[in-house]
């Protein structure tokens, strides 16, 4: 990597050419977005959440629009970790970008099993979803208590020597405490936020729009909540933070980095504007040069609280 690249960042030992990562679940395995730009444009890719065996996901409808956001209740539809390793990963590894496997399980054993399998591959990082609000027996049960979050971190940590990033749920009273708990068990990084649990009702039919009744809120509507949580977590732990939730423009990335994020992910905004990553990278390049920064990383955590 060229050391003149001012957007570059080393994030828990992995070199990213820029801090921009499409978020898990919004980008599949990248294939569909290659129509818009080469995947090498991106700092990294967090792929669709992978479980031990294939899952069909929840019944449709799985999406509801909200003011400045959306609810989803996909329910981790995915072809399973073996398919990911055999078919998707070899293709992704040719794309000259960092590949982050995002994993989820219903039991601690499932997390262990997936992490052990991924440990033997050339995936660059593992992001551990303990915060999916859409699966009954799913990760969220672990993500909402310090004990649960710590136990999954410990199990995955023991199963792999890859960098481990724990993905935190915003549906908790004190997210900084959860972050400290996963740090204590050896997490290399944290990413946040996953979606906020929400609901919409069709007033004509009195039916929830989502067949799952409830789903996860994301998009610009959650941005201020995400910035606040990233700020609280960055102040509470020494491991690096990957910030996400509602990012849609380069200005949002700068704001999230000032709050304390070293890298960022972008999800729902890709649906309205699939070109957003390219536009954001251009915006960040201009920002760095307008402000005479040596590195975009110089702004991380520089918010000046009152």
């Amino acid at each position, binding site marked *: 990597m060229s050391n003149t690249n001012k957007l570059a960042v080393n994030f828990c030992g992995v070199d990213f050419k820029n801090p921009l990562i499409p978020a898990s*679940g*919004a*980008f*599949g395995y990248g*294939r*569909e*977005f290659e*129509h*818009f730009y080469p995947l090498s444009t991106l700092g990294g890719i967090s792929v*669709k959440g992978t479980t031990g065996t294939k899952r*069909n*996901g*929840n*019944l*449709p*409808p*799985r*999406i*509801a*629009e*909200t003011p*400045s*956001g*959306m609810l*989803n209740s*996909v329910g981790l*539809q995915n072809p399973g970790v073996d398919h990911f390793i055999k078919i998707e990963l070899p293709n992704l590894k040719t794309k000259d970008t960092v590949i982050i496997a995002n994993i989820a399980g219903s039991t601690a054993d499932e997390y262990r099993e997936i992490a052990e399998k991924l440990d033997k591959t050339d995936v660059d990082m593992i992001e551990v979803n303990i915060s999916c609000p859409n699966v009954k027996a799913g990760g969220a049960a672990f993500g909402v208590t310090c004990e649960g979050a710590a136990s999954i971190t410990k199990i995955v940590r023991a199963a792999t020597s890859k960098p481990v990033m724990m993905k935190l749920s915003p549906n908790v009273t004190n997210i900084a405490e959860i972050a400290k708990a996963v740090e204590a068990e050896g997490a290399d990084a944290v990413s946040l936020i996953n979606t906020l649990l929400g609901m919409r009702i069709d007033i004509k039919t009195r039916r929830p729009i989502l067949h799952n009744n409830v789903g996860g809120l994301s*998009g*610009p509507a959650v941005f201020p909540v995400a910035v606040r949580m990233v700020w609280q977590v960055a102040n509470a732990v020494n491991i690096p933070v990957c910030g996400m939730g509602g990012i849609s423009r380069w200005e949002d990335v700068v704001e999230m980095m000032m709050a304390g994020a070293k890298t960022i992910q972008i999800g*729902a905004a*890709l*649906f*309205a*504007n*699939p*070109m957003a990553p390219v536009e954001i990278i251009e915006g960040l390049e201009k920002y760095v040069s307008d402000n005479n920064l040596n590195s975009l990383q110089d702004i991380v955590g520089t918010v000046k609280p009152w």
Partner: protein
Amino acid sequence: MKYTQGKYLILSKKTLAKEIYDLTILCPDVAAAAKPGQFVNVKADGFMLRRPISICSIDKNKGTLRIIFEVRGEGTKAMSQLAEGSMIDIVAPLGGRGFKLEQYETAVIIGGGIGNPPMLAVAEKFGANGTVISGFRNAAAVILQDDFKATGAETILCTDDGSAGRKGFVTDALKEVLETKKPDIIYACGPDVMLRRIIEIAKANGIKCQVSLEERMGCGVGACLVCACRTIRNGDEYYAHVCKDGPVFNAEEVLFDE
């Protein structure tokens, strides 16, 4: 499937019926790639999610596409404000599977309500070898009859209340047509209840059938997995994705809710 995102010129805008708009868009690259049954994903000003609208007709020589939409809610309301001469932001052409037309010679082509527009591109392929059955609520909602006639197809118009054409459902007309004709295939787009009955009739008569489905969408390209619909694949139930695996499905693949 090869698609792009871009802003394209609206060459003309017409009002076809109350709250039903007809746009012709100049988009040579999209028109060159587009196939009947595919759709465009339209940015509605002020909204998070794009609105999927079927391609109604494709003119590869002029490099234009025609789309027709009805105002159903806030997003289509915003789209109805788009003026002739302004730009429309679309991701297109989308849909991994449109209508398969090549191997068939004769067809019955059925549209229900706002499911009629995508059937025009199909009718244009079959010409006089097509029979078009269109159904609407009432005379005020009727659209596209001159366009269907211009393809050379035999056309049958049905309304629920008999205020235009014959009174009754498209399925009644279909049964009558099948008494004298045995088409190679039936194509249909419209409400689920209508598609379900058409599939039953096609099955009972041993005729192939393809239907275009609707589901709420996020990305429109196959990445987010929100647009799931229940199908049968290799004997197992599989949640296919309308945007990438469809929007057109073979009748025998589709599972409807009980």
